[in-house]
């Protein structure tokens, strides 16, 4: 299988405390993985490291066979951050305009949309079943519909990998169901590799093909079930009692 992310012996700290330690993980093409763990367990930090926004103190991350910090083909990776919905909801932009913004890198020096790029906006919205809403103001859409637009914004660059940071926060049950329908379709039909962060094991366990557990900066790459997850949490807690924090750069 084609490994698109390889993480070897990774350590990362913000200040005095290790946020991630001894992380080894491989993600293969076509996987639908979930990063599960409580707040502050290092999930979002690992996303930022994978995307090259942060640099590890120790260890190595490669993404599409390139070191993460030097990875330049941004369009191959889609990222929907935790703060994606932190915007002015009365901003006067349509769903189509929001999706088109992500084509910035492909617009050339004079940053205008040509007909080929406009076609891609239409296709991206169609993939999430939002083509009828292309000209609707973003603020008029429901939470679930906004989520679809942000997924379309990621799809417009035709990514092979999508990273979703807490995409279910703020969505009701119906919108969550709706979200998984879209994501599963992208995963199955387009073969896009997907990694999503969640702290709710129950919601995602039936949806994803693999669960990676996080607890206090350590990971367990193959959490098959809730039993595994709980056992892992307990194990880390036990280790923590013996663990003396160290800080090496």
């Amino acid at each position: 299988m084609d490994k698109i992310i390889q993480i070897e012996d990774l350590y990362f700290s913000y200040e005095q405390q290790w946020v991630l330690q001894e992380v080894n993980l491989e993600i293969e093409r076509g996987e639908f993985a979930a990063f599960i763990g409580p707040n502050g367990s290092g999930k979002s930090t690992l996303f930022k490291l994978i995307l090259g926004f942060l640099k590890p103190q120790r260890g190595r991350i490669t993404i599409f066979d390139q070191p993460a910090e030097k990875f330049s083909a941004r369009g191959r990776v889609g990222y929907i951050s935790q703060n994606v919905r932190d915007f002015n909801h009365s901003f006067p932009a349509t769903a189509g305009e929001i999706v088109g913004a992500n084509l910035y890198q492909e617009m050339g020096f004079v940053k205008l949309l040509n007909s080929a790029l406009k076609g891609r906006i239409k296709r991206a919205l169609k993939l999430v079943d939002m083509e009828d809403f292309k000209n609707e103001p973003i603020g008029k859409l429901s939470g679930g519909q906004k989520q679809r637009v942000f997924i379309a914004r990621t799809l417009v660059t035709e990514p092979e990998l999508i990273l979703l940071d807490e995409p279910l926060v703020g969505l009701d049950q119906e919108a969550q169901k709706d979200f998984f329908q879209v994501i599963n379709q992208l995963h199955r039909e387009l073969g896009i590799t997907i990694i999503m962060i969640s702290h709710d094991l129950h919601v995602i366990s039936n949806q994803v093909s693999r669960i990676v557990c996080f607890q206090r900066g350590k990971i367990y790459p193959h959490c098959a079930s809730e039993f595994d997850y709980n056992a892992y949490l307990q194990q880390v807690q036990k280790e923590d009692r013996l663990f003396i924090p160290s800080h090496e750069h």
Partner: protein
Amino acid sequence: MWEIFSYSFMQRGFLVGNIIGLVVPLIGVFLNLKRLSLIGHTLAHVALAGVALGIFLGIYPVPLAIMVAVVAALGIEKLRHSAYSGYAELSLAIILAMGLGLATILISLADSNVAVYSYLFGSITLVTRQDLMIIIPLGAVIALGVGIFYNGFFFVAFNEEEAKLSGVPVKLFNIIFMIMVAMVVALSMRIIGGLLISSLIVLPVAAALQVARSFRQTVFLSMLFGVISVNLGLVLSFYWDLAPGGTIILASVFILLLAFLFKAFRKMRSPKGMIIREEKVDYE
């Protein structure tokens, strides 16, 4: 009726006025959406210090006003992202105070209240050939700049963090944009006056936000409302012998009121909140 166009000072006034009427709201759209609508007020006060310095030195003050405003705009940008990130309005207040303090001293040194007054409240009759030589090319540069960077500015205004993640050079764009803002403010002082610039930055955009259904429409309508306000204001000021800055602003207030009415009327015709797939109402 056409008497108004027979005066060369009015011809110059209309030419400059229309450039300002287009460019100020164009920049204003992005400023308002970045929640920096009062930047015009701040930069105008700082630019006033440049004007006073020019008068004091006995030279044409507009280039000095532009230079001082650009430095101040870059100062605001720096403060907004470093010492006072999250308190954008504080960076405006600090630069405003500095500019006004400096302007007060320079005005007292310049000892030419009439000239300073014309930059505070604007004066159509004082638009000179020299003003045209600087306002026309710089106006064109600003319009062209926004045209080229339109999509980048849009993304940054929508969500700065997300734009950064998508590879938009946010810092560079913010600097280029702030330089444009400073230029626009300094150029507009001549015709609408430093005290009234922020009104032309805010009012046409506020009206467009009530009516527009997309970002592109917001930009287009803001510029249209800006141009209508300027032309209506200039005509009224000529025939009723009033200060053009005041008539231009009141014309844009009138357009804003019409926009409120239009929105209320549209709401009455299509009562709906959130769009639901089955009940989608076509606005067009």
